[in-house]
């Protein structure tokens, strides 16, 4: 057997293992979360891609439960931050405190905040002030925290999962564009269907409360992330991702009519990164060795919807960014 054959066998094995682990993870989460398979897939994809996810939905749909369950399924530390208007950056990042040692000498000691967990739930992130929200910027992008000229590296894997309520806008602070751009995906949690509600009620009001098992360790998660990043992308498929991204910019020739009419700013390059990473994971999950155009199309909405900034006309007309993305997917040719 040649090296190439051996390598191929190894690849197949890796992909099989990847699929199995993800399937197991999904199955464990499904014990706790019912009727949100797409959200679960999105969250798991974001974790595997090394990105962060923003969940948007009304209260009581299981957003926090989802994150907690994920944390339990992965052998990782978990922290929850309830964002409130009086929440301060130090409440998230941590602070230097004066302590006395045994000899009675006073000294500064850094007390780590909840950000130093592997999985951080930023619950109702839009309730905190922009100052507090921006405390997350460095941590989310650089995976580090700088305080009093000292930088502290966060322990990988680091994953922020934020939630926000779209209804209660009073007393909230919408996330700035820079903050939004740092989320790999924005997932919209919708109200579950009748069957799903029955299952939820059965599970939460009965005697037996299910407990998810830990199926993925931290090292395995990192391995899986590496595999994801090695999945190759054909040039024409990558070109499609680029053209989709360009189509979100009203000034580009690729822009669709809606993008030209309602979009003020299109997606940043992070949008294309999100597209490709999400597509790679989808390809692996479907047992393929390379990304297809359909993978790009599948992840386009969660990857781009929060990166489009509508203009006044778009806002006034109540245009959803999802409609713009749908039009882009419909009109941008798959091959040129």
């Amino acid at each position: 057997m040649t090296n190439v054959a051996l390598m191929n066998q190894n690849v197949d094995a890796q992909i099989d293992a990847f699929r199995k682990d993800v399937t197991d993870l999904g199955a464990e989460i499904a014990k706790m979360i019912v009727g949100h398979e797409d959200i679960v897939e999105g969250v798991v994809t974001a974790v595997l891609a090394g990105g962060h996810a923003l969940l948007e939905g009304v209260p009581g749909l299981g957003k926090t439960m989802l994150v907690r369950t994920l944390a339990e399924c992965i052998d990782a530390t978990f922290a929850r931050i309830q964002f409130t208007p009086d929440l301060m950056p130090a409440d998230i990042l941590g602070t230097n405190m004066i302590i006395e040692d045994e000899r009675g000498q006073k000294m500064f000691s850094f007390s780590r905040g909840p950000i130093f967990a592997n999985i951080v739930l930023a619950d109702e992130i839009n309730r905190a002030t922009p100052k507090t929200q921006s405390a997350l910027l460095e941590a989310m992008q650089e995976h580090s925290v700088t305080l009093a000229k000292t930088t502290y590296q966060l322990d990988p894997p680091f994953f922020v999962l934020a939630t926000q309520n779209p209804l209660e806008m009073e007393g909230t602070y919408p996330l700035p564009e820079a903050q939004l751009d740092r989320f790999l995906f924005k997932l919209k949690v919708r109200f579950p269907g009748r069957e799903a509600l029955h299952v939820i009620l059965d599970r939460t009001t009965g005697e037996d409360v299910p407990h998810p098992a830990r199926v993925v360790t931290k090292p395995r998660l990192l391995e899986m992330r590496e595999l994801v990043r090695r999945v190759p992308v054909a040039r024409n498929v990558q070109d499609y991702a680029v053209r989709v991204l360009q189509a979100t910019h009203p000034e580009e020739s690729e822009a669709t009519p809606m993008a030209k009419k309602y979009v003020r700013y299109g997606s940043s390059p992070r949008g294309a990164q999100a597209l490709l990473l999400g597509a790679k994971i989808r390809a692996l999950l479907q047992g393929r060795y390379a990304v297809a155009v359909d993978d790009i199309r599948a992840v386009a909405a969660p990857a781009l919807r929060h990166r489009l900034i509508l203009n006044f006309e778009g806002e006034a007309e109540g245009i959803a960014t999802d409609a713009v993305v749908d039009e882009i997917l419909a009109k941008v040719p798959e091959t040129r």
Partner: protein
Amino acid sequence: MTDVRRIHALLGKVRRRLRLQQALEWGTTAAIPGVAAALIVLWLGRMEIISAPAARAASLGVAAAVALAAALGALRRFPTALLASRLDRASGLADRLGTAVDFAARLARPPVLHPETVALMEAAIADGLRAAPRANVRAAAPFRVPRDLRALGAFAAVGALVCLLRFGPEPRPAVRAAVPPGPAPSEQTEALDHDDVQYQRDIVDDMHRVAAETGDTALEEMAKKLDELLDKAEKGEISKLEMLAKMDALEQAYQQGAATDADSDALMSQLKEQGKELAKHEPTKKLGEALQKGDLDAARKEMEGLADKLEKGALKPEEQKKLADALEKAAEKQREAAKKQDAKEAEALKKEIARLEKKLQKDPRNEELKRTLAQEKRKLDKLQRKPERPDEQRPLDRLTRNLERAAENLKRKDDEDKLRKWADEMRKQENKHKELAQKQEAKEDAEQKQKIDQQKDEVRRLEDKLKKEPGNEELKRTLAKQQRELEKLEREQRDKQESRPGRVLERLARATEKAAESLKQKNDEQQRQQSAQNMRRAADETRKAQDQMRQQQNQKRMKSQLADLKDAIRRAKPRPQGRGGRQTARGDGRSERIKEWERRAGGHKGDAESWRPQGNAADKMPWLRKDQQQSGKQWGDEHDPNVTGDPTKLADAKFKEDQLEGQKGKGPSRRATIITSAKRGFASESYSKVYADYQKVIEQVMNLEKVPPGYRYYIKRYFERIRPHTD
């Protein structure tokens, strides 16, 4: 593992199908302007803006452009990525083939990749190859109906309709002589415009005049019939086509009714030569002089005078002898002249034959040339055998002559009565033979005419067919062939008529010779009578020659006149609604006014009323009040509508007749005459002289110069308009 030829083969199939489809698309799209361009070419061709070969070339160009567009469509480049994407999408292969082709290309290039990435790429290629059998080439590149096919269909339908429409100028006649140019005659019976009919009547009037001058009854008869036809045409009782057909028949009848012989000019010149010889001798001096002058009337009278003298015995024997010598010499001279003429013709024919043979050597396949050469050779042969001919062809004449001589000799013997009876019997037989010969000739003529008529019908039928199918090359060839055949038949008929033994001159020479022979016999009473009879016969032949020459001249002239008349009829416009006739719907009396103008132009007094609207005063001037519409009796308080009356009309004036003397002298200059005529009319004597000069020049130019047939009509009509009015 990186061998993706199987995938490339599939992509090649897709490419071919796409190119074929593209060729169809582009070809269909290009065919739409192609059809439009073809229609333009068709229009240009039908309107004769471009020639038929140019139209054909343009049509081929259009077809070539469409084919080129299709070829360009077929040559369009389709990137491999595009083909692979189409195939993947159509086959539901999730970009496996496209990815495999891309990775294979990337792996062949130097950049070093992570081994695990390479392994994934190779796995992707293998995956692509495994998926290849599932590729659906037909679904990836389906053959569709070209999107512009409907539009093309619509264009093609419109084009076909336009092709079926008959438009454009009237096609030029293929046989120019048969159908002179001009607007095609309409089959509808429409009354012709008075103005046009007037012009046609002028031509017919000219025929009447010529017929009266020359005593040509056949021409007079034809002119009368033409008058009747014109009456019918003016009333709208006959269509142009019918009229032209009837005119053809009349012309043919007139041409056939007249005997044909050698050219009248040649005949006259030979008679003059004969006259020269006769003028040398005293007894025939006057006769010779009359012939020299071309005064055949005087010559005839002189011959009759000589015959009278012979009958009465007024000539002395010496005078008779001199007369006999003179007549004999004249006859000899005549025969010599005829021989010379024949020799001259034979020489000309030989030259022509030599020229044709030379031409045939260069072009041995030219059938037309071969036919012409054979014809010329036959003519030459006929001409060379001519000296033998009198004996061979006219046995009856010879018999008569010998019979007469024998009778004269036998008269001197006893059995005169018996011989006279025998001679009478022979003469009867001769007449019978002559009748038979004439019948045979008439029959041959009729057959030939029938053939020509049939050929003309065939040519017309083909021309009509060609009008409907102008692009039919086969039809054009057939038409040309039939036209050649028609020309050949007409030529044969002409040749036949030319070679027919009319020969007035020969008959005249023979009569003269006979008279001379008689005179040389013993001078008794019977022989004198015989000589006088022969002399009278010669006089009669002279009269016939004169008539024939006149008739030939008339025929020539009438041919031209009839051609003008036919042309005028073809071009004649139908009378506009409400404008024709003396009393029209509008009552404007245009024709009356035209006649009035002609009268005035002719120098006659005009009629002031003819310029007024016809009808009562109320109709004439409806804008006037009732009281104003009455003619006034007193001046000052009433209105007379006749305010624009003829200023020269002096209704209640007392006339005083004065005799005015004409001015004598050189008269006005030519220029002044023309200017005056243009202002006052064309009736003055001076203008008649000017016009006579003009007419000569016109005829000369029309005969010699190459004036386009279409212009001839207008030139002739113009000069007809400015002709001096003598009525």
